[in-house]
């Protein structure tokens, strides 16, 4: 949706983006946006969820020792500078991703359960089902006054993944990690230009923007009316889709109200509008991270779910010397070469994360940096990918959580305890100021994360 107003001259460039060459002239002149009421007394809380697929190699990732006195292994090496704002959480169980009597579909289920703590329904039909995901729960509170309550981003396009879904499971289970409610999975945007446009508009004047919003508002009124008519003519079984539609209309209407109420912050310099999808994965991923920093910085959204890659991703990584495809390699059969390759991919993904964290740290926010006030969960729904293990998955909690998180720790839950991954979600939501009783199969909060000093859970 088009939101913003004032045009600015180009001053900075998105880093890591070769794509700024030959930029269309006017793209450099983009609108500015809103002042953020940042004060030291009330830091803005923000959350980020970043998904990496196809499990991990524990031996290259998980520190040998729990507590504060541990060495970072190769996969996490790039996070050394962020060690004091990071908690490595090991040994949790994504139990709802287990078969539980459903036909095989470990990748679909682990992806769907990661933020929902719920068992994905075995179906390819209209009856896909999981649960409201942690990011959307966060968005309800943290995003209540944001123009965009949340962003859902990814790098892999659906249309190049034909036939790459698990038999009998809708592709949506692996195409998204974000669920607005139990029946509404949210699409994830891969195009940097679209993300930029959603954040900062299309360069129209303030007057025009206002007119856009008004017209859109009255069209939505008319659409609501039409949906009502259809509802009377359609049976109950069709009402699910109509309800979803109507809810979307209301959602957009309230976004428009918030957009209209928003004022400009001429102090912020925007980079040029991104162009196409960059040709390399690295550039694409970095650009998507850049946009996330911008979105937080401009306070257009406070919650972002980012799927760096999706489950079953067949991506190759020739730039780091990995010859095979990620998913195929992840079924490594204990072959040391394949194991090393998967670990290299894990480490590479973490390097990209470090790039992002560096930018968050470099961006002032209130009395600190964006990173100081964020709660980021980085991880995936599978542990040992060779056997589709849904226990002991990679999990990193990063950020200061506005003083609520104490980093520099490794918390290792004994696998036998089967401590629910959803407990971590509940805990993190709590840290970010979004208290929830439970989420999916959660049984409570994780003591040791909640009470930084008492490492009792170790």
């Amino acid at each position, binding site marked *: 949706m088009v939101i913003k107003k004032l045009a600015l001259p180009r001053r900075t460039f998105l880093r890591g983006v070769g794509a700024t060459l*030959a930029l269309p002239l006017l793209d450099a002149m983009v609108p500015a946006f809103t002042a953020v009421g940042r004060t030291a007394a009330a830091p803005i809380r923000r959350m980020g969820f970043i998904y990496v697929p196809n499990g991990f190699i524990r031996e290259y990732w998980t520190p040998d020792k729990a507590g504060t006195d541990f060495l970072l292994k190769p996969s996490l090496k790039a996070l050394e500078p962020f060690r004091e704002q990071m908690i490595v959480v090991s040994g949790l169980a994504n139990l709802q991703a287990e078969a539980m009597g459903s036909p095989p579909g*470990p990748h679909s289920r682990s992806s769907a359960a990661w933020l929902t703590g719920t068992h994905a329904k075995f179906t390819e039909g209209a009856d896909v089902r999981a649960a409201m995901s942690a990011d959307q729960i966060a968005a309800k509170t943290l995003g209540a006054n944001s123009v965009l309550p949340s962003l*859902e981003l990814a790098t892999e396009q659906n249309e190049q*993944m*034909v*036939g790459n879904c698990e038999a009998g499971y809708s592709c949506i289970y692996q195409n998204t990690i974000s669920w607005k409610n139990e029946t509404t999975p949210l699409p994830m945007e891969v195009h940097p230009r*679209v993300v930029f446009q959603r954040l900062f508009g299309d360069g129209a004047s303030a007057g025009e923007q206002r007119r856009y919003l008004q017209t859109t508002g009255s069209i939505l009124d008319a659409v609501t009316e039409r949906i009502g008519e259809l509802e*009377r003519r359609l049976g109950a079984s069709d009402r699910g889709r109509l309800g979803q539609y109507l809810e979307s209309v209301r959602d957009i209407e309230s976004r428009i109200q918030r957009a209209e109420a928003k004022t400009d912050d001429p102090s912020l310099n925007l980079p040029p509008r991104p162009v196409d999808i960059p040709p390399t994965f690295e550039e694409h991923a970095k650009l998507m991270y850049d946009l996330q920093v911008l979105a937080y910085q401009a306070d257009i959204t406070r919650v972002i779910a980012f799927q760096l890659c999706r489950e079953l991703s067949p991506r190759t990584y*020739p730039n780091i010397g990995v010859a*095979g495809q990620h998913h195929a390699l992840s079924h490594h059969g204990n072959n040391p070469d394949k194991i090393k390759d998967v670990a290299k991919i894990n480490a590479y993904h973490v390097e990209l994360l470090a790039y992002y964290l560096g930018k968050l740290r470099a961006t002032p926010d209130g009395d600190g940096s964006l990173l100081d006030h964020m709660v980021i969960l980085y991880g995936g729904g599978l542990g040992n990918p060779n056997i589709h293990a849904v226990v002991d998955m990679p999990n990193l909690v990063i950020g200061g959580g506005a003083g609520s998180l104490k980093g520099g720790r490794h918390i290792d839950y004994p696998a036998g305890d089967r401590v629910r991954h959803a407990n971590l979600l509940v805990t993190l939501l709590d840290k970010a100021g979004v208290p929830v009783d439970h989420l999916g199969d959660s049984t409570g909060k994780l003591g040791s994360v909640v009470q930084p000093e008492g490492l009792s859970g170790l």
Partner: protein
Amino acid sequence: MRIRRPAVRGLLIVAALGPLLVAVSSRPQAAPQASTLTVSSATDARGAVDKYCVSCHSDRLKTGGLSLQGIDLSKPAAHADTLEKVVRKLRLGSMPPLGLPRPDPNGYTGLITWFESGLDGVAASTPNPGRTESLHRLNRAEYRNAIRDLLHLEGLNFATLLPGDDASYGFDNIAGALGMTPTHLERYMDAARSLSRIAVGDITLPPGGETHMIPPDLSQDEQFAELPFGTRGGVRVQRYFPADGEYIIRFQAFTGVGASEAEPNFIELSVDGQRVFYEQMKQTPIKHTITGADIQANTDWEVRTPIRAGYRDVAVTFVQTTAGQLEDYLQPFLRPPGISSFRLTRMGGYSGPYVGQVSFTGPLSVAGSGDTPSRQRIFVCEPSSTAKEEPCARTILSTLARRAYRRPVTTSDVEQLMTFYRKGRAEGDFTRGIQIGLERLLASPDFLFRIEVDPSNLRPGAVYRLSDIELASRLSFFLWSSIPDDELLDVASRGQLKDPAMLERQTRRMLADPRADALVSNFAGQWLRLRNVQGTDPNAALFPDFDENLRRSMRRETELLFDSIVRENRSVLDLLNADYTFVDERLARHYGIPNVYGSHFRRVPVTDAHRRGILGQASILTTTSQSNRTSPVTRGKWILENLLGAPPPAPPANIPPLDDTKLEGTLRQRMEQHRKNATCAVCHSVMDPLGFSLENFSPLGQWRTTDGGFPVDAAGAMPDGRKFEGVDGLREALLAKPDLFITTLTEKLMIYALGRGIEPSDMPAVRGITREAARDGQRFSTLILGLVRSVPFQMRSAAKDNIERIAAKSAQQ
């Protein structure tokens, strides 16, 4: 020479595709045959089932979750779902498991026929058309085509207008998977605004920018088919210019490695074939460096030029100064091994001049809306006075609404649009009024959704015939992925589409229309997974000569083959066995086909029998490979899913981990060791032999006789145990039982046509279609016509909880 296969292979063949392993007799291939079986009654069938099936599929064992013990075979209606499963296994020939007793071949066929006629009889007397959801959102491809046909707008980037779609059942046009979220709605509202403004030629549209990136591994050494002769490399961008005015075109052009002033290159920019810029390339300081940073400054070119509104061809290309190979590289498309960064690729591996990206800014100093096809399409009248504006707006908007909503419009439809017209008219001029009316129209659920409403007063679950109007949309979205045209809508509005002769006439007309290309890009693109070619990235160290050009050519070949089947109304079996194919020079060299020069595709006879049909095509062979090796498992799975209609289930969760370190030998030997694991063997014993038969094709689909120093062993077997050698054997085995392939294709077409998964209750219709096709040489149009005439396409089951029942309920309360 061939590697001897261990004897264990024969012992472990288990044809069951179900999740459970069946303990199999250790007797090898020669299955004991019983005396002749004749099936003409339920008693006969029961006897056969008891004799051949029930030892495993009993109430007690329930092998594969199936018991056939207590089923009353004289009542197929009561057990249709189970019996359809049985028929599927029997047709595939995978049951009873190889090595266990089977009826004689005639008896086996007789049993299938008896089951099928029972099931078909039930379907004939009590049709069950199934039910696609009432609200079926247009997917991105359909929306794009609808805009093209409604507003004559082309050349816009829909990837930045709308979110991508999720697939179910292998296709991205499934009603149940096309949800409506705030993200979608937000984008639909934005799209409605920008498209309506572009279409009416809104001269207040703020200047926009758009960049086209050229894939980094596109070799630009030769002339491209879409660019003029006498040029080399470069790019053609087909793009919509929203108004008459000036545009700034920027492009990145590099002179190439080793270029010198003595042998200069010349660059040309043209719009619709007219040269607007021509210049000698300047020497740029290109070095074999890793950073690439120092070369960026001198590569940007900028041209400001007037361009008329509409869909235009912009070409940025080089003049071909020599037809000779570049002297420094004999294979100019070679990539340096192990490196993917495009700058490195270009500097290290690509030596000629090339264009990096092209961007457009504009319109600047707008001269007017221009006389575009869109404006002609929209403004069917022009008000000569203020008084005539309202009637004219009414004409314009009701004409558009009829096409966009794909039905006759109501007064209320038009009034709603007129309300918005008046709003816009009050703000600005007549054009603004139409634009706002159009914006409203494009945001309407009646445009965004295909809506099928049950007629009132039907009992829940009742079967009814779709209206002609609904049928018209089904037809046009099936064949064109777009809205009906005026002729189809006229016929349907007059109630004539239900007439079989008219339906056939319209179907044939639509198949012959260029819009039927959608069947190639959307149906074949997904059925055969051609869309995945774009994402393939073979290992550069092993395949340094793989480039974007080859990727495009691979996909194009298969698309053109499918297209020829459609256009020439050929037998669909030609997909497997065509004695012709389509190549350009790049692909011909890849295959080793001599005497093909130039970048245009042409039809050539297939002289090398291995290459006949899709099984010999690089698109399929590459997308089913890993980046560094072939994957017989993936290839086998692809064949099972897409050609034989027998998708194997995903590996079970409790699968014991495969220990690579304990396997040795060739890939085939390792896979055979893998299959010693009984759980794995259930599926892999079926997948692997199919896939291994294609081992003569490298990961990029090039012919080979050795792999890793070992001679290729391309022995294969069908799920029914028929053994064969190599791709030729596989093709013959498939053609020997064409019904499996035809049935699979029909099923896929039906999923795509209906926008829903198919159910056992659809199988009688599938069989009806294939039988009809068999009588007409399996022609493509016969399959399509059969489908269009079928019960699931023409009819629909009312909701189980339809509205009257709800009304009645609430009346009771």
